Each structure stands twice: as C-alpha cells, then as structure tokens.
C-alpha cells in the first residue's frame, strides 16, 4: 500500500509549565525559566538540588487510588499525559477498532522505588553488615508485594492499553533521552504503513529522585551551578552540564484521511523519522556529531529530503554534546546551517530524558501553528564551537515555518530525530 500521511490529533502533557499545551508553549515563548532549588527529594535529607519539577499535576486527578498504588511516581505522568492526549483527540470509544489501536512508549527501564526496599535491607543489615540469608528470611517479606510491577518498564504501556482497549501493535523503548522520540517515530511508521489506524505515542520520565540525583552526581553530567537563573545554558561558552527536569508528552496519531473524515482538530503532520547510533568513543559512550547527523539526515530523507526551517536542538548543555550537535548541523546543512534557527528548550525546562521527545515535539507543533520560535535562554557567551543561530535571548522570534525537526540523543549515543509539518488548512 502507499504510505499513509500521519497527523497528530491529540496532545497530552505533564510539564513544568502545567498540563495545557498552549500555555506550555506560551511559557517557552516568553523565555520563562522553570529551574528552581528543590529541597524535597525523598532520601536526600533536605539537601537542595536544582531542577524543573512538574507543576499543576495531581496524580489523583487522573488515576484512581488503587491503580496509583501500582505505579512508581513517574509512571503516573505517562498515564495521565496519554489520557489527556486521548481526551484532547475527542475520539469516541469505538471510533477505532481496538485491534487497530496501538501504543508506543518511551521510558527508562525498570524504575524501582527504592523506598520500597529500604526497610527490608535495614532488617538484613541489623548486625552491621548486609546478610543475604537474613534478607531472604526476614527482609524479603517486608518488601511491597507488587514491587516488581510498580516499576515495571512497560507499566505505562500496560495502563494505557487497558484504559483505551488498545490491543494492536505496541512497544516500550527504554532508551531514556531518546525513547520518547523513537516511540513517536515507530508509531508513525506503524500507522503510515497500515498496521494501525490510531496510536498513542510518547514518553515520560522524572530525573528528580534520589536515584538520578546520586547517579548524575557521580557522573559529573549535572551543572555544578546552584544559580537557578544561570545553571542551564545550552550552547553557551560557560555551559557545564544539564539540570534535571521531569514530565511527559503523549500524542494521538491518526491517518490524515481518517482524521479529516471525522473532522478532528489537526495539530500537524509527522513527516519523517530517523535513528542512528554512534557513541562518541568506546570509553566515552555518549552523543556524537556522527550520530546527530545520521539520525537527522535519515529523518529528513524520510520526510522527502527538504531541509526543515528550524531544528529544535537536543541542547544537552554538556561540553561535548552541544559542540557535537553543532558540528553535525554544519556538516548536514553546510553554508545554510547559519540560516537555520536551533532553539534549545532545555535551557528553560531542564532535561526531561524520556519525556523530552514528547514535550519538545509538542512545542514544535505549536511553533508551527504560531509561526514563532521559542528562545534559548542563558545563551549569553558565544562559544566558537557552538556558532549557529540558537535564537539566543528571552524573546520568541517570528519565523516562516513549514517543517521543524526535533533532535534527541541519550547518554549512551543513541540518536533519533523527527520532522513535523504544519497542519494544512
């Protein structure tokens, strides 16, 4: 069959600027900084870290209490965002044959809530040293009986399949920073090629927990700055790492003809998707110019070959990644690269990992709608290695946009990109 055109007819967000997609975009367009000190992370004993927490989100508004007890904290973000996307799409319950409705989720793998294990481990360590046999005898029975399922990597996929009776093709891509992007891309291909007549796709994550705080503290990937107004500075000469964020972004994807036939609101079209992997080096797995260029070139090729008018950067704000991303864009677009704006949303909302693809693609759709590019804030000191147009400043810029690309990468060097286009009248 001829590949079908695929459009987005529903958006659901959990973000640091709340759950309304239009308000999320307007906050970005105003150059709003969401990063603040947070001293309430469980297990850190009141120690403050910088982050951009989700706001205006109460899981109980979206999920019943019984189900919530089966969800690690970030899981509720994903479930809620997917539900909001379905509500936004206005699809009747029987509008899509359940076996032709699928779900694709980007996640980070098993998200164990360590608070569920602490009591058991303490019991097994009462002698001063941890003993496995003590743990097996008296610790294990103290563990939450559903511990394994609470953090199940495909937990969101389960809950949204159940909620919407989505029985069709599905996947859970546990690639963290690039998982949401690839989930949307894979759903796009499944609808495009006729495996599905509708898909829920997106990603969710939180890096505001003790596990991530410890992990990134060890890896020196976080910005060392404690100044909330200066810590997150993608492409700036003084960048020194990212600031953690959290959230979720989900979409409803439908074939264009079916969406039109039911008179759906169309946010935009998914035109292309590509993925590539190229770890920076064997001893330094991470983003590379080769990977950024490979994924973006594949996405543009998938979209028909025309360069997008803007690229929403991954803009991780580490020394290496931003320079590599810049190098990739110059390699790909040559002399035209300086004419393609590259805003970095992480300057405002931090790094939402598996949530990035959904949140940043949602912003790209509203940029197309309003013909307006949000800025990269804190980009005040030019870096010779990062010399493109990042829309530096705190003000949005009007721009004529037909297509926008969204770049993402994870911390191991798996890259992916999407190209989205304007909804046609």
């Amino acid at each position: 069959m001829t590949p079908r055109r695929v459009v987005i007819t529903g958006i659901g967000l959990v973000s640091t600027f709340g759950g309304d997609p239009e308000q999320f975009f307007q906050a970005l367009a105003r150059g709003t900084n969401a990063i603040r000190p947070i001293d309430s992370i469980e297990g850190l004993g009141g120690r403050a870290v910088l982050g951009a927490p989700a706001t205006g989100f109460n899981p109980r508004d979206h999920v019943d209490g019984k189900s919530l007890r089966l969800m690690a904290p970030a899981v509720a973000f994903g479930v809620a965002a997917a539900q909001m996307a379905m509500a936004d799409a206005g699809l009747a319950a029987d509008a899509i044959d359940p076996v032709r409705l699928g779900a694709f989720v980007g996640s980070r793998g098993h998200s164990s809530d360590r608070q569920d294990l602490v009591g058991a481990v303490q019991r097994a360590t009462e002698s001063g040293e941890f003993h496995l046999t003590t743990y097996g005898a008296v610790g294990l029975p103290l563990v939450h009986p559903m511990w394994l399922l609470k953090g199940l990597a495909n937990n969101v996929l389960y809950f949204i399949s159940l909620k919407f009776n989505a029985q069709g093709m599905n996947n859970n891509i546990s690639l963290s920073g690039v998982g949401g992007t690839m989930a949307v891309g894979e759903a796009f291909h499944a609808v495009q090629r006729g495996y599905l007549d509708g898909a829920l796709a997106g990603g969710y994550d939180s890096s505001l927990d003790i596990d991530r705080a410890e992990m990134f503290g060890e890896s020196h990937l976080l910005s060392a700055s404690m100044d909330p107004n200066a810590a997150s500075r993608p492409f700036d000469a003084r960048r020194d790492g990212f600031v953690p964020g959290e959230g979720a972004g989900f979409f409803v994807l439908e074939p264009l003809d079916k969406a039109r036939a039911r008179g759906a609101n169309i946010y935009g079209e998914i035109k292309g998707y590509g993925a590539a992997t190229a770890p920076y080096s064997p001893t330094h797995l991470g983003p590379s110019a080769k990977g950024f260029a490979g994924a973006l070139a594949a996405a543009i090729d998938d979209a028909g070959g025309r360069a997008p008018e803007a690229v929403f950067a991954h803009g991780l704000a580490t020394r290496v990644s931003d320079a590599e991303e810049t190098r990739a864009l110059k390699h790909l677009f040559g002399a035209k690269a300086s004419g393609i704006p590259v805003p970095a949303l992480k300057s405002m909302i931090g790094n939402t990992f598996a949530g990035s693809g959904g949140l940043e693609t949602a912003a790209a759709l509203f940029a197309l709608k309003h013909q307006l590019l949000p800025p990269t804030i804190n980009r005040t000191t030019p870096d010779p290695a990062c010399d493109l147009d990042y829309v530096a400043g705190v003000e949005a810029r009007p721009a004529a946009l037909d297509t926008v690309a969204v770049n993402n990468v994870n911390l191991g060097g798996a890259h992916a990109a999407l190209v989205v286009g304007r909804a046609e009248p």
Partner: protein
Amino acid sequence: MTASNRRRVVVTGIGVVTPVGSTIERMWDSLVAGRGGVDHIKRIDASTFPTTIGAEVKDLESSRLPTDPAILELLDRKNQFGWVAAADALADSGLLQLKPERVGLSIGTESRRPDFLNRLAANRVYVGETAHLRYSPFVIGCALSSQYGFNGPLFTISTACTSGTQALGVAYQTIQWNKADAMLAGGCDSLIDPLMLTGFSLLGALSTRNDDPAHASRPFDLHRDGFVLGEGAGMLVLEELEHARRRGAKIYGEVMGYASSSNAYRLTDSPPDGQGAYLSMTNAIADAGLAPKDIHYINAHGTSTHQNDKSETAAIKRCFGDYAYDLPTSSTKSMMGHLVNGGGAVELIVCLLTIKHNLLTPTINYETPDPECDLDYVPNHARPHRVDHALSNSFGFGGINATVVVGRVNA
C-alpha cells in the same frame, strides 16, 4: 505493502549463552537429549528465599568474556552474556567484513540489578563516573555499537518477557522498511539475583518445587506450579536477503512475519480466551503471507504457570482450529527455565535450528496431562518432523504479546 514487493529478511548468524549450553552446538545437543539445566541456585546463597532453584549458566568460559576492563565494568552479568552471544552471532555471520553504517542494533534487556541490595545497605548505590550508563538498559546496545562501529538505528526494548521477541520484530521491520541492511538483534537477562527472586517470589509466579529442581519446570503438565528463573542471551544477525546472497552468507532461515499485541486485561494474568496471544499469532502469520496450516511447529511461551499455559493453549486452538491438535508445540523453558528479556531470542534460534534439522525439541517433565492443555507438546523426547515454517511466542507482564514467524529459505 504486499508480501511480494517488500524487502525480505533472513538470519545469517546466531549466538547463545544458555543454562543448557553456551554455544549453539552444546545448547542444541542438550535440547535434543531433553537435558534440563535447572538445579539448586549456586551463585548466591538463596537458601532462605521462598524459591531456592534456578537455571544457571554453567559452562561459559571466561576467555569468551570481554577483555577490556572498561567494557567489563560497564556490563553486568546479563549484558556480558549479551556481549558473548553477539560476538558469536557476528562471527558466525561474517558480517564484520562489511561497512557498518547500515547496520543497526535491537536488544531486549533491562536495567542493572545484581548488586543493588548490597549497595543500598551501604547507603551508596551509584558509584563512579559511568554509573548513569551501567544502570541503564541501553548500555549493552551502545557498547556493542561502539565496539563494532554499527551506526544504524539502535533500539533497546523493555517489555519484560516479551522484550527479546519485540526486539527481533522491530529489527525485522527496520530492514524491511529499508532503514538498515542488517541488524544485530536479540535479548539478554540474568534472573538469578536477589532482587528478581524477591520480585517474582512475592508475585507467587515461581515454582517452589525446591526439593526436586530437575522436575520443577513442567509446562503444560497438570502439576505445574510456576516458572523457574533462568539466565542467558540469544543474539541473531538479521540481514536483507539480497545483501546476504551477494556476499554468499550462510542463511539459517527467513524472518517472515511479526506482530505484537496487548491483552488490555490484567497486569499479570492472561485472559482465559487467549485474546492477545491469538491476535499476535494471527497477525504474524498474516504478515508472513501464510495460512495457519502452513505453520509446522510452535515454540510456545510455555512458562509452566497455571495461567499462561492454559491461556496459550486456548489461543492456539482459536488460531489454528482442529489443526492445533496436529501442530507440535513445545516449551524450551522446560529445560532452561525463563530467560525473561533473553527468552524470545533464544527460542527463535531454537525454531531456526528445528527447521535446519527437521527435529522437534521436547517439552520435558510432561507426565500428567491437564484436560485444559490437550495439545501435542512433544512430550519428553525429541522427534523428527518436517518443519518449513515455525512460530515463536512471547507473552509478558503488562499483557504484551509478540510472535515471530520464521521459514526455510531454499538455496
């Protein structure tokens, strides 16, 4: 897209690490002999756990592990299995002589686990600059990409027991859709660790036949009482047919069809009517351009839990009608236990070897028929049978199902 004009995908390399042998030859010999690998757990002192049995990898030579200390540090036990199986599959395929830009990876795996409890006891879980990599499920894919210079798409799939099969399905589609010419695909896992014993024991999913480990994993038998945790990895090289033929590659078989589905039912239980499994089998057979009667062997998910085996049997009957009773269906898990993220890949390799040898591997420990499980499970003994097309099922927690159909390729 019709079956006639789409790119065809074949398997040109295979590698395994399993509890019944850590090479293809050793594993196949064990499976044909009906020799199980379940025993008392020896790697850790599990004596006070509700379940004290498991299927451990016993014969993996340390010389086959990665030699670079930096790589060894990155990879936990399951990922080391994955590394070894990948090296074997790639060597088997001869793919390494080619340009790697159009080669991708797709791996079913999970986050790091083995030392979590000890580190939690020490109140310092994440140590070292690579902690963010070591504890992430994607580390094995990224490390393999770096090692072999593969620059195609990378997938890391985590859908519990279905991961390996979905990773293979996505790899097949990626080649079919012309996003890569070859994919290293499979899965790896090691469940013999305190956290996984905890999680699965608390769910009541494991066999507690602690005094008789050899007979604990007994899929489809009336007296089955849960599954047995295993460990290992399976990796395959998937390649576009003409690409493989041009370079004169050995071809094990063709990946002909794939489908995934969701039960949309319960978190752990499977539906009595087998709806999700029925859907994934039916759609995978259709994707292969085949009819149900063209399938000659099913490698069942066959976990040895009461629910799964009953529901899978119902789904097979729904999908195949009366032919289900003439369709041999066996469970590799009777011998190697449940490899969870690694299971689907190893079991698809078993399907390919079944086609190659025209020999069905048995379901061992099958003693007492269950009226609700009344198919031909190839009880206890291998037997010759012409197999041109085989089907492998995987069903996971969260209600996710996936099926892959493989077929013989005539020279």
